């Protein structure tokens, strides 16, 4: 069953007299209990996409100019403020990268947790407190009952992120949006948090949108992956297929840029040349054309369609680009055959 269906989403920001197309024509859908990983580099539009789903894009300067966000059949973009507020935090919850700035420093952890429960579920303060203790236990915080009366500054980064997760899952949401939930954390703490997230997801049957720049995190957790570049989804498909056989030159380049623990390191990395496009003044044709190794004249003039490639997969490229050799370091082994020649 489809729980979230985003189609044709476009978001613009007015910045210094110019219009910035932060997100353009983004479409994806998510089944109940499924995890979608959205990967991309800074400025690719992944966070704005997430904020749009929650209708949290600051307006102005931002504006959702087109698209539809169907959550359990209802279009969130046309909902009244009161209705969307009832969905936020209760049916769709969100956790952010920096748990320190998302927690209120002058309220105890307990107060912040019970508030969610009292507002959304109408629990009695005492019941809410008991529930809060259970929630802290659920995310693995030791001595939960006594820590409830402490303030956020007493918690380490990993512990704060656990508190954020506890708050997010307090109402047993149908969908959790996690925006770089472990980016600010050390790798051993990241492993703890990712384990908690995946356990909770299984227990509660939540769907999850996991936004990250780390392809490793996505490889471990996501059922499907969407790769974003320059405000667009440039490739999308089931995780295993996308990693084994990436089809968009950007995805191939990204995988070739990562130093690997699981590969011999005698070869040089194969970086993508150039730099990511500026949000304003992006190229006319394919956004990736200026950096693409396989660029052809058509790429600079015509924007490629987001078209199906094989079973259940899409890519935004004029050509059939494939890695034929084993391994992403393989150079010069890609077969190019113009599709529309």
């Amino acid at each position, binding site marked *: 069953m489809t729980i979230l269906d985003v189609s044709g989403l476009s978001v613009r920001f007015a910045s210094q007299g110019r219009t910035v197309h932060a997100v353009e024509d983004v479409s994806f859908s998510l089944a109940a209990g499924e995890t979608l990983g959205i990967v991309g580099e800074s400025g690719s539009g992944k966070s704005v996409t997430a904020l749009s789903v929650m209708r949290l894009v600051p307006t102005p300067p931002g504006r959702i100019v087109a698209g539809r966000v169907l959550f359990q059949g209802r279009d969130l973009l046309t909902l009244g403020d009161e209705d969307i507020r009832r969905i936020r935090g209760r049916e769709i919850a969100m956790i952010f990268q920096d748990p320190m700035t998302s927690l209120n420093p002058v309220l105890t952890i307990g107060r912040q947790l019970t508030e969610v429960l009292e507002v959304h579920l109408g629990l009695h303060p005492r019941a809410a407190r008991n529930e809060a203790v259970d929630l802290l236990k659920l995310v693995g915080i030791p001595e939960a009952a006594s820590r409830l009366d402490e303030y956020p500054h007493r918690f380490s980064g990993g512990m704060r992120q656990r508190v954020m997760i506890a708050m997010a899952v307090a109402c047993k949401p149908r969908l959790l949006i996690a925006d770089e939930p472990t980016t600010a954390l050390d790798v051993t703490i990241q492993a703890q948090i990712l384990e908690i997230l995946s356990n909770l997801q299984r227990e509660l049957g939540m769907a999850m949108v996991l936004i990250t720049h780390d392809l490793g995190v996505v490889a471990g957790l996501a059922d499907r992956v969407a790769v974003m570049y320059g405000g667009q989804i440039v490739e999308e498909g089931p995780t295993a297929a996308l990693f084994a056989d990436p089809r968009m030159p950007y995805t191939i*380049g990204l995988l070739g*840029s990562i130093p690997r623990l699981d590969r011999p390191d005698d070869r*040089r*990395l194969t970086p993508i040349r150039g730099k*990511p496009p500026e949000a304003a003044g992006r190229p006319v044709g394919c956004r990736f054309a200026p950096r693409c190794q396989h660029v052809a004249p058509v790429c600079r003039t015509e924007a490629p369609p987001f078209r199906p490639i094989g079973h259940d997969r899409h890519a935004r490229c004029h050509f059939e680009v494939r890695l034929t050799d084993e391994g992403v370091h393989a150079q010069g082994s890609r077969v190019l055959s113009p599709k529309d020649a």
Partner: protein
Amino acid sequence: MDSGILLVVEGLEVHFPVRRGVVFERHVGTVKAVDGVSFVLRRGETLGLVGESGCGKTTVGRAILGLVSPTAGKVVFDGQIAGGAKPARLLRRRIQLIFQDPYASLNPRMSVGEAIAEPVRLHGLRSGETAVQQRVRELLDLVGLSAAHAGRFPHEFSGGQRQRIGIARALACEPELLVCDEPVSALDVSIQAQIVNLLQDLQEKLGLSYLFIAHGLNVIKHISHRVAVMYMGQIIETGDKAAIYKAPVHPYTRALLSAVPVPDPAVERGRRRIILQGDVPSPMNPPPGCRFSGRCPIASDRCDIEMPALIQRVPGAHDVACLRAGESAALMPLAALESG
């Protein structure tokens, strides 16, 4: 002394006093940021110093540069005592630093050409303005920028380009050792790879030695010849890259390696992950025994009271500080990662 040895760090300790109160300031404790660190760096070699935040890796780098005074121990650079004392000034040209955030380390009001020319003039490395400008063009070319960039200012550049400028400025001093403190952590993945390749090319061309400080185990593996793993101010395991990554012994190293996500769903889902409990303890009152004992899945009672010394397992290739070094592989199995 081995003529190939460029840098020797011996028993380095950097302690910071912790004070409370404004008027009646009192000493309430000591943070042992670096607590007995020793290592050797050879010419043309990269030593990767890896650890999580707060483990003291940056402070080790700063002590080598003489930016903090060691509480104890010594830093010997090319046979001369460095760090803290006066001679450090003479050595400073030969040891340069590359920062994580190249934007914060460049003067926003100085053109890139000026920023690079400054150390060339200051150290008298070229005489005459034509020679200096010629050198600036050479350096820009060396780091993959063009001579046309010399007249521009830092804000006109992207993060990756700024890091190139930072590297050019460091190279302007004609150093022998570069201390690279998280040089790629702030950059996007596709740009990281460009900078990593640049650093490797420069090492080949110029015979530089690198102390590469980072928290990313995959970047460290890619760029280093030897690796030292730090935990709470101490090196707990060190050795050749192959030893650390293929046969890690210390429980912390094993857990760290198991926790790094790998961008391959088939590998990632079949992996055995060692999830450590708890957080790194406060550096103000570290446990009396092994610093890692509180989080270690195989710690014994002895680990809580006895501090393990760094003991050689493979002469010259692998040292480990763990009382249970002989048992960790059996008790904490780790799937072999590297294929081929």
